C-alpha cells in the first residue's frame, strides 16, 4: 500500500523529466505508476472475511504522526478504482492531447494528484489524511489551471482551490477536535465512546460535514465543480468523475461510522444531498455544452451518494457503495465519449451536433451504454443501484421518495439529451469530418461502458465488489442483493413513474427550457462568489491605496499610532512594577543636562546647521554618559562616530537646497506631538519595566573566561572579536554594503540625472553657504 501511494509521486518526477523526450508517449510511463494500485485488487479479493492490513511507517512519533495506511475493504476498493480510472485516463490522454501540450507537466500533475488521492483513501492517520486531502486540493488546482495562459482556466482553478481550501481548514479543525476527544490520531484507534460523550462531538461533526460538502460540491458549494471543467477532458474524467469529488463522499462514508449515531449527521446530509441531486439534475438538463452537462450531472450524482451514506445505516451504505462503482464506470466513460466528440468535431455544443451515430458507431455504442446506465435503464448497472436507492428512500418516507423520483426523472431526461447528438440529421461544424475515433480513445471509453453493462447483466460481479467493503463500512448484516428483477415492488412502480416523468420532460423540452429560464434565480452561488471575491479585491485595493500609497510621514503616523494603541492597551492591562527610584548621583547631572539640551535644542532649531550641531551635542552627551557609566570603549566609538557624522552632514549640505520651512498642518502637528510624547513615555516605561529583567545574565561567563579563552583583558573587545565574532563580521558586512551603496548613489548623482526626474540646479559648492536663520 505504501508503495502504491508513493510510486505515483516518484513517477511524477520521472514523467516531468521524460516529458520533453518521450512527448505524448510519457502517458505509457504514467500508466505504469498505477500498477501497484491495481495490484491492490489481489488482497481485495479476500476482503469480505479477512481483516484489514495495516502498514505503518514512523515519521514524527512525538506528534503521533505516522504514515499509517490501512487496507480495509472500502479503502482498497476505492484505491483500485483510482488505479483503474487513473490508468485509463493516462492512456486516453496519449491519444487525446494536442501536439502543443507540455506533456511532462501534464503527466506530472496527473500523477501527483493520483498519488494524493490514493494516500487520502488509504490513510489511517488523521493528520496524514488531512495532508493528502490538502494535496488533492493543490494538485487539482494545478490540473485545472493547466492551461494557465487562459484567464478562464486560472479563474476556475482559483475558485476550486478557494472552496476546497475552506473545507480543508474545516477538516484540520475537525481532525484536531477528534484527536483531542477521541484520544488518538488514527482513525481506527479513536475511542468512539469517549468521542460521543465529548462536548467536542458536535463541532467536529459540523466541521467534517463542511469539509465533505465543499470537496464533493454539495449545495451551495457546487459552484466550483463546473468551472473546474476548464481542465482537459481526461483530467475531468479523472478528477471530477471518479476521484477527487468523491473524496468528500469517502469522508462521509468513513466518518459516518463515528458520527452516524447522531441525528444531526443524517439530518443534515440527507436533505442537502437530495437537494443537490434535484438541483444539479435540473441545471444539467438546461446545458448545451456536453461537458457542462456532465459537470452538473456529477454534482447531482454526488448528492445522491451523499444522501445514501448520510442515512448511516447498513442499507444506505450498501446501496451507496454499489452506486459508487456504477457511477465511476458510467461517468468516466461518458467523459471519455464527450472527449471523443470534441476531438472529432471540434465542438461540444449540442445544437451544433447531430447524427453522429453513423459516423462513429462504436462511440455511439459506448455512449448509449453509459448514458442508459446513468438514466437507470435496465439491464445496466445504474438501474440496479437506482432501484436500491428507491428502496432506501421508501423506508424513509413519502417525501424522500418523491424527491428521489423527481431527481431521477431529471437524470433520465438529461441522459437522453446527451444522446441526442447521435440522432437526427447529420450536423457538425464546417470543416470537421467526424469519423470513428482512434483505438487509443475508444478502448478506455468502451471498457468502462462494458463494465457498466457487466454490472447490470451480471449483478453478482457488482455485488461481490460491493461486499468487499462490508466489514469496513459495517453493512455485513444487510441482506440486500443486487438483482435485475426483484419483483413488482414499490421501487419498480417508482421507476415506471420516473420514466413517465422523464419522457414528459423530454417531450416537452421547449416548455421545460422556457420554465428553466424563468426559474433561474438572479442570485446563485456563482454570483455570490464573485461578489465576495470582487468585494475583497476592491476592499484590499482601497485599503492599500489609503495606507500604502501615502507619503512616508503619514505611513509612519499610522504605524506609530497602531503601536501606541497596542502598547497602551498592554500597559493598561498590566500595570508596570517600578523599581526603586534611588537618588541620582550628582556626577551624572551635567551629562543629563547635555542630553536634554541637545534634545530641546534640536526641536527649537530653525536652521539645519544648528540642528546638526545640537544633535552632535546630544551625541557627545551620550558619549559622556557612556564614560560615566563605565563604558570607555563605547564613549570612544561614539565620539569618533559623532565627529564623522557631523562631517558627513556638512558634506551633504553642500549639495542640498537651502533649507525651507515646511510647516505641518495644525492637526498633524498636534498628532505628532501626541505620538512623540507617547513614544517617549512608552520608552520610559519599557526601560523601567525591563531593568534587570533578564536575570541571571550570561555576562559572568564572559568576565571569567575573557582572558583564559580570548587572551584579552578588555572584555568588551574580546566579546566582539572572539565570543561574538560572527556578529561583528555581520556588522562589518553591513557597513561594507552601506559603503558600496553610498558610493553607487554618489557616483550616480555625479554622472547625470535619473530619467524622468526634475532638473535640480547643482548648488555651487561654496563652503560658507548661508543658512536661513
Amino acid at each position: 500500500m505504501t508503495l502504491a501511494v508513493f510510486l505515483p509521486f516518484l513517477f511524477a518526477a520521472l514523467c516531468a523529466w521524460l516529458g520533453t523526450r518521450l512527448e505524448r508517449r510519457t502517458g505509457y510511463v504514467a500508466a505504469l505508476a498505477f500498477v501497484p494500485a491495481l495490484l491492490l485488487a489481489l488482497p481485495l479479493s479476500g476482503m469480505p472475511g479477512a481483516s484489514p492490513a495495516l502498514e505503518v511507517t514512523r515519521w514524527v512519533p512525538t506528534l503521533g504522526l505516522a504514515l499509517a495506511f490501512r487496507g480495509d475493504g472500502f479503502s482498497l476498493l476505492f484505491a483500485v478504482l483510482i488505479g483503474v480510472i487513473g490508468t485509463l485516463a493516462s492512456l486516453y490522454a496519449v491519444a487525446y492531447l494536442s501536439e502543443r501540450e507540455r506533456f511532462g507537466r501534464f503527466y506530472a500533475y496527473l500523477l501527483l494528484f493520483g498519488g494524493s488521492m490514493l494516500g487520502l483513501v488509504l490513510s489511517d492517520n488523521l493528520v496524514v489524511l488531512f495532508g493528502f486531502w490538502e494535496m488533492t486540493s493543490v494538485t487539482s488546482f494545478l490540473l485545472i489551471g493547466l492551461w494557465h495562459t487562459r484567464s478562464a482556466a486560472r479563474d476556475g482553478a482559483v475558485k476550486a482551490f478557494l472552496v476546497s481550501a475552506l473545507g480543508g481548514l474545516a477538516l484540520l479543525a475537525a481532525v484536531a477536535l477528534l484527536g483531542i476527544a477521541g484520544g488518538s490520531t488514527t482513525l481506527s484507534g479513536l475511542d468512539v465512546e469517549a468521542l460521543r460523550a465529548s462536548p467536542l462531538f458536535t463541532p467536529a461533526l459540523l466541521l467534517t460535514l463542511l469539509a465533505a460538502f465543499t470537496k464533493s460540491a454539495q449545495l451551495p458549494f457546487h459552484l466550483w465543480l463546473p468551472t473546474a471543467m476548464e481542465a482537459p477532458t481526461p483530467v475531468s474524467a479523472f478528477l471530477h468523475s471518479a476521484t477527487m469529488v468523491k473524496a468528500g463522499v469517502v469522508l462521509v462514508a468513513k466518518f459516518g461510522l463515528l458520527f452516524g449515531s447522531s441525528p444531526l449527521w443524517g439530518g443534515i446530509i440527507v436533505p442537502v444531498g437530495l437537494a443537490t441531486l434535484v438541483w444539479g439534475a435540473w441545471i444539467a438538463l438546461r446545458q448545451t455544452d456536453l461537458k457542462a452537462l456532465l459537470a452538473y450531472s456529477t454534482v447531482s450524482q454526488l448528492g445522491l451518494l451523499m444522501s445514501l451514506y448520510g442515512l448511516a445505516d447498513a442499507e444506505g451504505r450498501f446501496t451507496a457503495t454499489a452506486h459508487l462503482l456504477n457511477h465511476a464506470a458510467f461517468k468516466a466513460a461518458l467523459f471519455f465519449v464527450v472527449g471523443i466528440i470534441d476531438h472529432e468535431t471540434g465542438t461540444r455544443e449540442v445544437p451544433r451536433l447531430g447524427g453522429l451515430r453513423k459516423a462513429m458507431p462504436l462511440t455511439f455504442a459506448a455512449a448509449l451504454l453509459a448514458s442508459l446506465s446513468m438514466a437507470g435503464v435496465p439491464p445496466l448497472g445504474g438501474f440496479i443501484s437506482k432501484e436500491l436507492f428507491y428502496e432506501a428512500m421508501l423506508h424513509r418516507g413519502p417525501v424522500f421518495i418523491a424527491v428521489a423520483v423527481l431527481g431521477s426523472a431529471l437524470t433520465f431526461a438529461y441522459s437522453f439529451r446527451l444522446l441526442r447528438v447521435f440522432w437526427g440529421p447529420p450536423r457538425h461544424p464546417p470543416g470537421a469530418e467526424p469519423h470513428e475515433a482512434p483505438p487509443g480513445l475508444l478502448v478506455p471509453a468502451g471498457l468502462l461502458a462494458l463494465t457498466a453493462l457487466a454490472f447490470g447483466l451480471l449483478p453478482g460481479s457488482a455485488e461481490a465488489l460491493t461486499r468487499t467493503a462490508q466489514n469496513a463500512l459495517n453493512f455485513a448484516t444487510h441482506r440486500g442483493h443486487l438483482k435485475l428483477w426483484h419483483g413488482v415492488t414499490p421501487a419498480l412502480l417508482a421507476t415506471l413513474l420516473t420514466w413517465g416523468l422523464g419522457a414528459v420532460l423530454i417531450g416537452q423540452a421547449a416548455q421545460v427550457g422556457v420554465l428553466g429560464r424563468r426559474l433561474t434565480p438572479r442570485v446563485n452561488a456563482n454570483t455570490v462568489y464573485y461578489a465576495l471575491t470582487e468585494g475583497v479585491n476592491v476592499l484590499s485595493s482601497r485599503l492599500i491605496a489609503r495606507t500604502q500609497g501615502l507619503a512616508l510621514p503619514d505611513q509612519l503616523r499610522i504605524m506609530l499610532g497602531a503601536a501606541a494603541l497596542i502598547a497602551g492597551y498592554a500597559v493598561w492591562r498590566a500595570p508596570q512594577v517600578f523599581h526603586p527610584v534611588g537618588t541620582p548621583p550628582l556626577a551624572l547631572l551635567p551629562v543629563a543636562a547635555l542630553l536634554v539640551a541637545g534634545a530641546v535644542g534640536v526641536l527649537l532649531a530653525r536652521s539645519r546647521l544648528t540642528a546638526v550641531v545640537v544633535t552632535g551635542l546630544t551625541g557627545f552627551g551620550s558619549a559622556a554618559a557612556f564614560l560615566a557609566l563605565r563604558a570607555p570603549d563605547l564613549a570612544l566609538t561614539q565620539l569618533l562616530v559623532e565627529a564623522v557624522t557631523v562631517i558627513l552632514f556638512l558634506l551633504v549640505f553642500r549639495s542640498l537646497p537651502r533649507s525651507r520651512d515646511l510647516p505641518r498642518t495644525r492637526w498633524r502637528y498636534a498628532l505628532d506631538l501626541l505620538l512623540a510624547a507617547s513614544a517617549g513615555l512608552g520608552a520610559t516605561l519599557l526601560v523601567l519595566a525591563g531593568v534587570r529583567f533578564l536575570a541571571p545574565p550570561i555576562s559572568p561567563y564572559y568576565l571569567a573566561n575573557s582572558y583564559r579563552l580570548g587572551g584579552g583583558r578588555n572584555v568588551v573587545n574580546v566579546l566582539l572579536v572572539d565570543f561574538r565574532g560572527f556578529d561583528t563580521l555581520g556588522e562589518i558586512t553591513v557597513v561594507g554594503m552601506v559603503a558600496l551603496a553610498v558610493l553607487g548613489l554618489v557616483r550616480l548623482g555625479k554622472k547625470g540625472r535619473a530619467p524622468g526626474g526634475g532638473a535640480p540646479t547643482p548648488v555651487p559648492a561654496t563652503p560658507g553657504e548661508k543658512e536661513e536663520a
Partner: protein
Amino acid sequence: METLFALLIGLLIGTGVFLLLSRVIVRVVLGLSFITYGGNLAILTVAGLREDAPPLLTLRGPYVDPLPQALILTAIVIGFATTALLLTVALRAYQVAGHDDVEAFGDNLARDPEAEDGLIADPEHQGPDRPDPEEPRTLVYSARSPGGGEP
C-alpha cells in the same frame, strides 16, 4: 539612577519620533540619530547601572556587565551606517525629484480597483480542449453580474 536614565531615554526617543515625522529630509535623518541614542542608552540601562569597575580585567573587580556594551558597540556602528545611507539617499532623492519634502514622496502600490482581471470561467460553456487558443475564444461569457455583458 535608572529612573533618571529612563526619563532621558523617553525624552530622546520622543524627540526622535517627532523629528522623524517632519517633512524635511535632514530632520528625518536627525530623528533617526536621536532614536539611536535613546536605544543605545536603553540597552545599557536595562542591564542595570552600577558603580562597579569597567570591564577591563587590568582593574580590580567587581565589573559592570560587558555584554550590553558589546551590543551597543555594534549598534553605534550600524547606526552610523544607517545615517550615512539615509543621507546619501536623501541627497539622491533631491537630485532626482528636485525637492526635499518627504511628504511629496508617495507611491501607490495598490491595484486599480476598477481594473479588469480578464475572462472568468463560465460554468455553462467551458473553454475548448486546446492548450493555447490561437484566436481569442469566440464564446460569449457571462459577466460578473447577471445584468452586464462582457465580450
